[in-house]
């Protein structure tokens, strides 16, 4: 089987390091080889578009061209921001001839291959896991039995919006279905595609924190004991400011916030250390209880 191209993006080398750890572990467990795109650059995120449209498209175009050069048919992109930037570039280059020509001329000037429509398939790991592995096969591979309560699946914004092929934009369910297949119950969570505010927690802090407070509060109200995300920025925003929210509202929030790859990886027998659980900021007590360190304790957690 040929390897999937893999575009980690900047966050997975910083605040989202647990996402990369658990993704690599999970894909290894499922025999899905990943080959990192050599010398990739930043996707431009949302900020680049606010300064220079052409350059923003070019940044993504270079990454796509690198994938063309290495004959990667599929490029796995775990970060929602990167996913959207790459997909949007593909769509706009194909849809708007003038932009397409400009982008391809610039790529040629840098001796990079030009982009033909959808030569490279940009894919979010949720899409790969759902369509190429699927809930049925996940079910057969489960080796650990989940004993904790239900979780709330939070999809966030950018992977289910205009340029996405990950899931439908109203009430996406693929993450719920995969986790249920792995024996992890999920709650109905109507805010699943409401935006976390992205970089707003860093810029207009109170606005960003409030958005995340609403998301956490609703998950708790629905009976979820943890939240599960597919994006490094969503995970960070929900995880990092719970103490501050507690101070402001005098409510105690201590909700673990996971990447879906962490929980799937755990259910499929991945090593605790290689799934990045120690990188969580909130919900430490539950995490310790659910994913105990010592193997002796772990045994009681594993299905017979």
């Amino acid at each position, binding site marked *: 089987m040929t390897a999937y191209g893999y575009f980690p993006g*900047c966050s997975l*080398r*910083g*605040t*989202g*390091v*647990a996402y990369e750890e658990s993704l690599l572990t999970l894909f290894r467990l499922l025999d899905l080889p990943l080959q990192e795109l050599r*010398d*990739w*650059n*930043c996707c431009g*995120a*949302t*900020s*680049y*578009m*606010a*300064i*220079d*449209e*052409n*350059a923003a498209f*070019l*940044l993504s*175009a*270079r990454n796509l061209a690198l994938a063309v050069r290495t004959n990667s048919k599929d490029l796995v992109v775990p970060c929602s921001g990167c996913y*959207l930037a790459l997909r949007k570039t593909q769509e706009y280059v194909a849809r708007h001839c003038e932009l397409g020509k*400009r982008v391809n*001329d*610039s*790529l*040629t*000037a*840098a*001796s*990079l291959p030009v982009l033909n429509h959808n030569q490279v398939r940009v894919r979010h790991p949720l899409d790969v896991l759902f369509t190429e592995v699927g809930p049925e096969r996940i079910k057969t591979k489960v080796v650990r039995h989940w004993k904790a309560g239900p979780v709330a699946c939070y999809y966030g*914004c*950018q992977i*289910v*919006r*205009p340029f996405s092929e990950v899931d439908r*934009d109203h009430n996406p369910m693929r993450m719920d279905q995969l986790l249920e297949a792995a024996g992890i119950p999920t709650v109905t969570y109507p805010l699943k*595609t*409401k*935006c976390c*505010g*992205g*970089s*707003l927690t*860093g*810029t*207009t*802090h109170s*606005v960003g924190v409030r958005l995340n407070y609403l998301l956490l509060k609703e998950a708790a109200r629905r009976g979820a004991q943890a939240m599960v995300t597919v994006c490094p920025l969503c995970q960070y925003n929900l995880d*990092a400011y719970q*103490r501050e929210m507690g101070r402001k509202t005098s409510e105690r929030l201590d909700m673990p916030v996971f990447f879906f790859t962490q929980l799937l990886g755990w259910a499929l027998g991945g090593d605790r250390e290689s799934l990045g659980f*120690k*990188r*969580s*900021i909130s919900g430490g007590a539950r995490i310790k209880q659910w994913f105990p360190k010592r193997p002796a304790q772990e045994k009681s957690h594993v299905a017979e």
Partner: protein
Amino acid sequence: MDVTPRRLIALVREGFRRDVLSSQTIWLCASCYSCAAHCPRQIPITDLMYSLKREAMRDHLYPGRFPIPVLAREFYRMIQNRGRNSEFWLVLRMVLRSNPLSLFGMARNGWDLWRTGRLSLKVERVENREEIRAMFAGAAR
């Protein structure tokens, strides 16, 4: 949000250029595409917000010391030079150039990230920066 999105669009249509471009509203758009996905007429509202941001940047009409445009500018410079984003250094630059005093309030968050191994001080770089330069130069021609 100083102007609601509907009002903002109305102001654009009536030509209140300065009011639109100096508003905080356009910068508070986090590009979640919710409006674009829901719009029955498929109006690309997110792209519209981006174009207003660019115009505000070009004409220096964005609200001064407002952290969001500062972040966008610092991010742009960082990627222009190195090709990759180093989260820690980007946030530091943004804070120093918008509201340095807020650094104190961020100490606890920084510690949380440090103790969980999520705060990298490494300066990330693309090796072949020449290629990126050539590509941007090709675009400028």
